[in-house]
């Protein structure tokens, strides 16, 4: 007979352990069980006893129901698009994927009480990524700008633009430097989700990452998982092309570039909020400069030591996602749910939860405002006031 906590979610235990970056043996020690047990719990062969289950919740700081509730499974399996360096480990990707799933989970739970912005994202119907041409990518980028009323000017805040279009975004640290972002169309609520990794990036790079993920959302809505795996490089380059077309539309950007050199491009950096490298790439894509000039620019760039970091990189603030944070705050302020109730509902470990929701550290641990009962001093009637006050006695002036 199987004993233990019924409905234990083995998958979630594994996700948690990977997120915390601890081994099965280490976890076993924390819980006071053999590492073999952990492995069995994770594989779903066995479920933990009540006391071990309690201990697990304490170790990870999650609510009990989170480890018990079934994950929502959709019929369609949409691919997760990663922006990462080739050397990023499978572990890093798994971590990022799990985070995005958690974000979807949070958003799904919040949507039970909140109405999110309707999704307004133009996207390609094409399911074969091999036939997506550069012209089509440029067209989609300008279609997005048109749909969102952006004109052809530089975009002040990319993340906010995405959120206004109904895309749920978050920025979080993963502990992996080679990962930049991940995005996914969630089939359940037909809504795109974007996770930006904040580990190494600067504000400028994060903007480009966001635009890159938008590229996947717009261009690769119907691309299957198999296609994604076999055409990874192509899909990445398409998303890149989209990002630069979206951030630097040909018609307006071209007008501002007369002589593409490092100095002139650098002068445009604060206005367009893109890196010089991205601008060089855009100039090449738009055929303002030929192959040799591009090589010269890259060489000069590395001679100036800009490969490690360009000037002004640190001058730009990170764009902070606000949608989820605003949702949470709204629920708390309108007294739909208290902080502790929300925490219980969302269940995730506190630091992870706060960072996924883009809330300030310690938001959930703040005390819920205690119910203050309105009390007022009783008003006295005019008569009471008249009699209770001691009258001033006027003295007669003495005769002299």
């Amino acid at each position, binding site marked *: 007979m199987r004993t233990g906590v019924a409905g234990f979610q083995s998958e979630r235990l594994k996700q948690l352990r990977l997120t915390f970056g601890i081994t099965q043996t280490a976890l076993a020690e924390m819980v006071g069980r053999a590492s073999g047990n952990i492995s069995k719990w994770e594989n779903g062969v066995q479920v933990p006893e009540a006391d071990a289950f309690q201990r697990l919740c304490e170790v990870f700081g999650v609510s009990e129901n989170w480890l018990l509730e079934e994950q929502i499974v959709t019929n369609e399996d949409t691919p997760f698009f990663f922006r990462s360096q080739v050397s990023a480990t499978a572990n890093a990707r798994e971590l990022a994927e799990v985070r995005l799933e958690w974000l979807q989970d949070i958003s799904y739970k919040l949507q039970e009480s909140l109405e999110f912005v309707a999704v307004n994202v133009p996207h390609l119907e094409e399911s074969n990524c091999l036939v997506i041409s550069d012209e089509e990518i440029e067209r989609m980028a300008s279609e997005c700008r048109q749909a969102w009323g952006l004109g052809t000017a530089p975009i002040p805040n990319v993340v906010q633009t995405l959120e206004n279009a109904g895309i749920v975004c978050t920025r979080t640290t993963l502990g992996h430097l080679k990962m930049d972002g991940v995005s996914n169309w969630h089939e359940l609520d037909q809504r795109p989700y974007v996770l930006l990794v904040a580990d190494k990036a600067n504000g400028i790079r994060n903007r480009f990452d966001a635009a890159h993920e938008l590229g996947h959302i717009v261009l690769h809505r119907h691309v299957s998982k198999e296609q994604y795996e076999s055409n990874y490089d192509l899909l990445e380059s398409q998303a890149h092309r989209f990002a630069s077309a979206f951030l630097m539309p040909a018609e307006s950007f071209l007008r501002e570039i007369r*002589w*593409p050199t490092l*100095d002139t491009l650098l002068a445009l950096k604060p206005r367009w909020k893109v890196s010089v490298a991205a601008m060089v790439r855009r100039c090449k894509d738009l055929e303002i400069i*030929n192959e040799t*000039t591009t090589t*010269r620019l890259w060489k*000069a760039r590395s001679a100036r030591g800009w490969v490690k970091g360009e000037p002004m990189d640190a001058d730009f603030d990170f764009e902070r996602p606000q949608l989820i944070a605003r949702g949470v705050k709204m629920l708390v302020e309108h007294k739909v749910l208290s902080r502790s109730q929300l925490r219980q509902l969302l269940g995730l470990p506190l630091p992870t939860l706060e960072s996924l929701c883009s809330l300030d550290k310690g938001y959930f641990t703040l005390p819920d405002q205690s119910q203050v009962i309105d009390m007022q001093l009783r008003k006295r009637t005019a008569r009471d006031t008249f009699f209770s006050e001691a009258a001033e006695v006027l003295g007669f002036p003495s005769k002299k």
Partner: protein
Amino acid sequence: MVTKEEIQDFIRAQVDREFFDELGVLIPQTFQKAAKEVEDLLIHTPPEDLRGHLRHSLVQEALAGMKRWNPIIKATDPKGHNYVLLELGKMRVTAVVLPWQKEIRTAKHRNELKTLNESLSSIQMDWIDGLKHTVTEQLIHALVVVHAPSPRFADQSEPVAIMMAVPYFNGNGFHMDCTFEELLQSYSDNQATDPKPIELVKLRDKMRRAEIVEDQIDDEQKTKG
């Protein structure tokens, strides 16, 4: 005798490497633009003439766009053209596009240079005739010479070479000439050592003496001949 290294040292001390990096990227672009424009504009007539004009104008235009280095746009004397002057430390820099096969020669070939100078004087009056001016301002003049390819050459979108030259104070020859690559290489080679560069006054006097010696040798050869 002033050595090439001495002058290069001096240039390095006065001018930031990034200036030459910028120029190295800019100047080829002027040729690309000129070639493309001419191709678009002219169908029936030979392109050389317009291309030459465009190259000159665009090189000046590009230099004038280097705002970081405070370019000054000057009218040539006699009037009719413009050229751009950049003052970098104790150096003045101007640029000229040289027709094909007209190489910068040493003083030995002064006779041939005379014709070359005359051909350039209409657009580069100041650096050839304005010698007193240069001396009083205590500046050393450096000339960016862009070599255009022969008109018969298939690829007109790239200059054959970009050179850096320091002309004589009397404009009749050159103390030093080297390619851009050579100059940039000297920047990277001397990054670690950083020798103390020669003083302007010393260098100038040395250059003057060298010019006089060259003149004398030249005169002697002439009398012999």
